[in-house]
């Protein structure tokens, strides 16, 4: 079941919170809408659900125009951050509610509820009330309620953020497995890039109501479309250094780095992933910086260095040792650099 957003915009009064968002979600795909709070990702999800009206543009689900359709007629199911379990209904009644609304025969309903409950290992708890369940169990109930009617699309609004870290990791894996098994198109909203990277077939990164990039996790990591994406994804974030680009040579301080291109940009930024850099003797590095701090993480040491005003992080071997304010050189493979226009944020070296 596909979901297609065509130039969808949303305004609240004079404030436009979503600008011309276009997305195509394939049948069975797991798409994550990633963004910081206020990026418009939840609004987009709620518009797909029909909980918010669409100011401009159209939304199609399974080829049907649902732009002005009521939520209940869109054939979507949603899992809320708060799970939104009905406190006055038992687990069985909660799960069965969508079926009850559709006036299913009682026997069918019970059978299906039991099936779904079994899938999420809730069959022992059917007679309990939500307040008698743990966080993880409540989460399963919410999932079960979404699954029970086999909707065209699953919508999930930060479903894992109310769980503690350990449980979250476990549930993430379960979720991924379940989505694979059921094969239902899923749109998932989160602000957590780890969730996005691990769960998604494709990630749509939003900022300021605009789609920044829509790509597979790998592509979005390795080939960010702009400076924002580059800095949003990855831990630690991508290192950047400010300088100028003159005929394909990036100049920062006294260092000149050949980039293999021939552009000239006055305000340019060079980007480097921490794992793509190496700390070397000052004489060997393409860039020259001062060591600011080094922290032993375990399997590696995280070195923080100062390059002019910019701060760079570099993953070094766990045996690395150096004193504060010591001059160091930073070496990297010229293929692994990213160049951006500081004023527009656009990638400069992405020519393919």
């Amino acid at each position: 079941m596909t979901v297609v957003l065509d130039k969808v915009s949303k305004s609240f009064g004079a404030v436009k919170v979503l600008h011309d968002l276009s997305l195509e979600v394939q049948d069975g795909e797991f798409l994550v809408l990633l963004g910081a709070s206020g990026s418009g990702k939840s609004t987009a999800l709620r518009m797909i659900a029909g909980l918010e009206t669409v100011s401009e543009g159209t939304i199609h689900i399974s080829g049907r125009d649902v732009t002005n359709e009521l939520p209940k007629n869109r054939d979507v199911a949603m899992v809320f951050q708060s799970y939104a379990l009905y406190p006055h209904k038992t687990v069985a009644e909660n799960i069965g509610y969508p079926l009850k609304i559709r006036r299913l025969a009682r026997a069918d309903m019970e059978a299906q509820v039991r099936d779904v409950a079994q899938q999420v290992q809730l069959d022992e708890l059917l007679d309990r009330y939500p307040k008698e369940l743990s966080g993880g169990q409540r989460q399963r109930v919410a999932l079960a309620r979404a699954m029970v009617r086999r909707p065209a699309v699953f919508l999930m609004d930060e479903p894992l953020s109310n769980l503690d870290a350990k449980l979250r990791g476990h549930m993430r894996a379960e979720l991924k497995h379940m989505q694979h098994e059921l094969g239902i198109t899923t749109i998932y909203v989160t602000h957590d890039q780890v969730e996005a990277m691990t769960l998604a077939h494709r990630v749509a990164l939003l900022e300021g109501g605009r789609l920044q990039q829509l790509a597979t996790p790998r592509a979005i990591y390795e080939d960010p479309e702009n400076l924002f994406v580059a800095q949003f994804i990855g831990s630690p974030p991508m290192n950047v250094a400010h300088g100028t680009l003159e005929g394909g040579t990036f100049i920062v301080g006294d260092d000149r780095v050949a980039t293999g291109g021939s552009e000239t940009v006055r305000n340019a930024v060079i980007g480097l992933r921490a794992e793509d850099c190496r700390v070397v003797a000052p004489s060997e590095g393409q860039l020259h910086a001062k060591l600011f701090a080094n922290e032993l993480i375990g399997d590696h040491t995280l070195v923080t260095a100062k390059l002019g005003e910019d701060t760079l992080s570099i993953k070094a071997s766990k045996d690395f040792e150096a004193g504060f304010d010591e001059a160091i050189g930073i070496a990297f493979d010229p293929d692994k650099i990213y160049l951006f226009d500081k004023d527009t944020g656009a990638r400069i070296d992405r020519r393919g």
Partner: protein
Amino acid sequence: MSRTLMQRLFEPTSIRDMAIGTKVIVYSILLFWTAFVLFPIYWVLITSFKTAVDVNSGPVFLPFIDFQPSLHAWKELFVFDYEDTLKAYVNSLIIALSSTAASVLIGSMAAYALARFEYRPKFGVVLTFVLVMIAAFYAVGAYGVDWRLASASGIAVFVFLAIALGRYFKARLSNGDILFWMISQRILAPIVVVVPIYMMFQQVRLLDTHIAIILTYTVINLPIVIWLMYDFFRSIPIDLEESAQLDGATRIGVFWDIVLPLSRTGLAATTLLVMILSWNEYLLALFLSTSRAQTMPILVAAMNAGERGILWWSMSVVIIVMIIPVIVLAIILQRYISKGLLLGAVKG
């Protein structure tokens, strides 16, 4: 001394920790108030078993000791006059129950709407409506225009003006204004509106019918329901409702399946209050009923038979009998209300 007494009194710990003097003071105040509350009820109760002579020749207090209780007033009401009593009782029940149900339902719907939807009526349009209404009244009152004609043309003029002028009006009202407007209706003393309401029902030939009184009670109690329920609805997480919508429920289904069950504490308290108010209402019933729809409070008042004096004994019987439905309802609703009676309701 008094300050330490105050301190002890306000000690929010166990009674065992209270000084014996404090305990005595607290209990004597409470027992005094208990006596103050119960004595009139006791007096009404024993009066219902007295004869005229017992009542008129000075006070007597204890049945069987200083007067011989007699069932004559009870018999009179339930044996000889049972038709009238029963009629009024049934009328009162029908009216109180239906109007309570109607105002709780309609009021809850409005309170829910104000809590969940956004309304932005234009101030100018509202003003136009009021002005047109005044003009229509003036026409009916001063020039004797038929009221049907006046209201039909009034509506037509209003619709025309609203469409023609609507876009020139800028100022808008908000949900808060609507809420305040609705709640403020409770400020209206019934005496202000009762005569026009009387004339209105008279025009449509509904005077002295159940429906007239039910409608009127429903409206006068709407503000209370809206006032009390608005906050209850606001406190329900909106996720629940959205989730139900996505599960396939209509708005009305959401209201019925999710919102109402979750506010039953508030509903129970509101229902009880509204029921008490409509069951006991006198002034409006006096105007709007004559014979067929006569209610119990009117029957109580009618026990003041003028020339022969007040029939204290019969009146006492009616007063006692009138408490029963309220108590029954209170007991039924008790388990929902528990200790949170009326709270949240007025929380602000």
